[in-house]
């Protein structure tokens, strides 16, 4: 019984740490969007600007978004996004501009395609696999005689 409880606790710990790791936004929300210039005149454009720049990876530091990074390239890319927004370009057009030049890797959440199916599918597959293992272990143990 004790062993089963230890198993359950470690499974819970593992799941919660996975959930924490999978949500980097928790850590990022604390810092306000660092910006080179004043806000965009239209608050709706500013909202889109903040969303898009959080969605684009800074290729120099690779795990930071261009909204959070203060390297020169990120500043250049923010300027590009700002200019395209003011010029009335759509979000899709801006993302296409970036992926045409830097590849799908520039997006933190690349669109689902044959190439990215593994990235999107892996968490569900792992969850299924983990669930299956837990189910089998628990069932096996419930059939064993009580050892204490």
């Amino acid at each position, binding site marked *: 019984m004790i062993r089963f409880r230890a198993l359950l606790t470690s499974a819970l710990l593992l799941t919660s740490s996975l959930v924490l790791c999978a949500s980097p936004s928790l850590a990022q929300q604390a810092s306000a969007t660092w910006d080179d210039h004043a806000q965009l005149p239209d608050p709706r454009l500013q909202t889109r600007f903040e969303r898009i720049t959080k969605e684009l990876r800074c*290729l*120099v530091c690779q795990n930071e978004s261009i909204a959070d990074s203060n390297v020169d*390239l990120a500043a250049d*890319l923010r300027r590009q996004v700002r200019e395209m927004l003011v010029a009335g370009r759509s979000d899709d057009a801006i993302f296409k501009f970036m*992926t045409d030049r830097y*590849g799908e890797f520039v997006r933190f959440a690349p669109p689902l395609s044959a190439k990215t199916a593994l990235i999107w599918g892996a968490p569900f597959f792992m969850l299924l696999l983990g669930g299956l293992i837990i189910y089998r272990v628990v069932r096996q143990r419930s059939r064993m005689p009580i050892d204490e």
Partner: protein
Amino acid sequence: MWKFLLPFAAFVALVVLFAFGLNPNRDIHELPSPLIGKAAPEFALTDVLDPTRTVSTAALKGQVYVLNVWATWCVACREEQEELLAIARQHVVPIIGLDYRDNQDKAKLWLTQLGNPYAAVPFDGDGRTAIDWGVYGAPETYLVDSHGRIIFKFISPMTEEVWEKEFLPRIAAARSGA
């Protein structure tokens, strides 16, 4: 049977994964460029050494050339300078030196002090041309064929080995195919 085969299969899968993932020759920061095989993004920029001269992709069309992205603030660029000078002395292809996010005076000083391997030095002070080319650092070196298509991109300082193994065969192939 399954009881033994399944863990063994998982073990083999892990070995394959690690062999690929932990390969010391693979730089995880190196990204494949989506521009390979596509037309080189156009630019028309002034030359660092001669502000009256315009360097443009349109004028470069029809010949195989190398575009090297460099800057005076880039330490690794100083590292590859010797090799670039050696390559320039071979007179195989012209090297175009895109001066990325730099200061023109410092760039001029650099070229006079360390030597100039470039056939032309277009100045990209605000980094816009670099964005078009998908540059995310310096040095980066591109190979463009006579149709104006990017056929290869190398990230990191140029070395003799890389030049001979990666660039020269591609230049020869581009010339025989054209």
